[in-house]
């Protein structure tokens, strides 16, 4: 993706996005614009809907109110959620092979290189069940190096990683945005990178009135 100084391409945007769970509104009126090169840190307390937002942006959660738009015609999104999406009985290499094989292909050389970059040199032929939690996350993240995706949607990507791993990952996030990609992530940890846009989900939360005497609760 080339960098045009005057017009930065918009990769993803939402228009008045809202989400309900059990008739309780998690967030509403969310209009977000994600441009190339941006890194967004979605913040909010537990239960605020951070994961649901990421899933709506990925297309996993149904969007009943509002819209999610992808202005670029062909956009590639990688979503890595709480559950890593790895099959325990397959090796790290095999897992990457099928994950990438869903919409593309890869050679073993490329996969080994990605695993090495993720810090798993020598573990390529171990089944995922034999790896530690942090190593499993590294396998999932290795996919980021294999697929040339525009937008990375990462839910708590630092979980289980050791100190070095967290540093490495922040490095990758930085490189990705410099190359013109975009990142949306949730994390309870602070991201120490130069340009971080903060999205505080509690701003969009619905004010719920529980007592009948309090005047206007907003209509759904």
């Amino acid at each position, binding site marked *: 993706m080339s960098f045009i100084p005057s017009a930065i391409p918009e990769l993803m945007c939402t228009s008045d996005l809202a989400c*309900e*769970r*059990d*008739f309780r509104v998690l967030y509403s009126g969310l209009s977000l614009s994600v441009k190339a090169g941006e890194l967004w840190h979605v913040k909010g307390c537990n239960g605020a809907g951070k994961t649901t937002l990421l899933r709506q942006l990925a297309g996993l959660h149904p969007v*009943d109110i509002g819209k999610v738009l992808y202005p670029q015609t062909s956009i590639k999104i990688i979503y890595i959620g709480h559950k890593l999406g790895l099959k325990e009985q397959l090796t790290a290499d095999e897992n990457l092979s099928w994950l990438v094989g869903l919409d593309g292909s890869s050679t073993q050389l490329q996969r080994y290189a990605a695993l090495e970059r993720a810090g798993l040199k020598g573990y390529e032929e171990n089944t995922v069940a034999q790896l530690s939690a942090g190593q499993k996350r590294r396998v999932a993240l290795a996919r980021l190096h294999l697929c040339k995706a525009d937008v990375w949607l990462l839910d708590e990507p630092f979980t289980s990683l050791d100190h070095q791993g967290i540093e490495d990952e922040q490095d990758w996030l930085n490189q990705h945005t410099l190359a013109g990609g975009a990142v949306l992530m949730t994390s309870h940890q602070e991201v120490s990178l130069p340009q971080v846009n903060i999205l505080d989900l509690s701003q969009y939360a619905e004010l*719920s*009135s*529980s007592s*009948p005497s309090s005047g*206007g*609760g*907003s*209509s*759904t």
Partner: protein
Amino acid sequence: MTQSIWRMPRWFHQMGSPKWFYGFGGSLQPWFALAAFVLLTWGIVWGLAFAPADYQQGNSFRIMYVHVPAAILSQSVFLGMAVAGAVGLIWKMKVAFMVARSCIAIGATFTVIALLTGAIWGKPTWGAYWVWDARLTSTLVLLFLYAGVMALNQAIAERQIAGKATAILAIVGTINIPIIKYSVEWWNTLHQGSSFTLTAKPSMPADMYLPLLLTVLGSYCLFVLVVLMRTRTQILQTQSGTSWLMQHRDITGV
């Protein structure tokens, strides 16, 4: 408002508003209650007490006045549930899912009544409480379908997902019902000679037929009444934070 591939008139979308449904449904409720009470009482009393006895079966056929409406309703309600579910899925109406959910219990009840009265009817006619007659067996399978929808509805915690899942199941079930009925009828003719069906023939004299019509209509009114009541209750339960409902409470004191 909501987008879909089919354009529907404005009143259709208006029905999907919980507030409107609560109000309009509330005004309709007493009428349906009255109609159900009048039609059912008239039909059942006439049928059970005053209609002429059937020359073949004597008085035991009178159970038909309860059995036939129950059987008809059991199928209609399932279809209605599927239609409501489809409406909810296509036009994303929460009220439609509530209507579908209201249908489950009443439909299952009609099915059980149909089965029980079928058994009661069967004893004097065939000498056995249960026979694997085509219609009874299909009704039994229908009861299983209802049980499945009920179980699925209760098993899924999140209400909106439950509504969509039960809608899909209801639609799949409805598509399958004709196939199931055909296959069971076919299976039945294979294994039994001529089976005496439990439906009375259409060529009945008027004073036998009319009470039946009354009970069928009355049952439909009862069904609509129950759906209105249950849907409105669900609206109360789920819209408790909204302004229109709180104003309503302030006015009515409910």
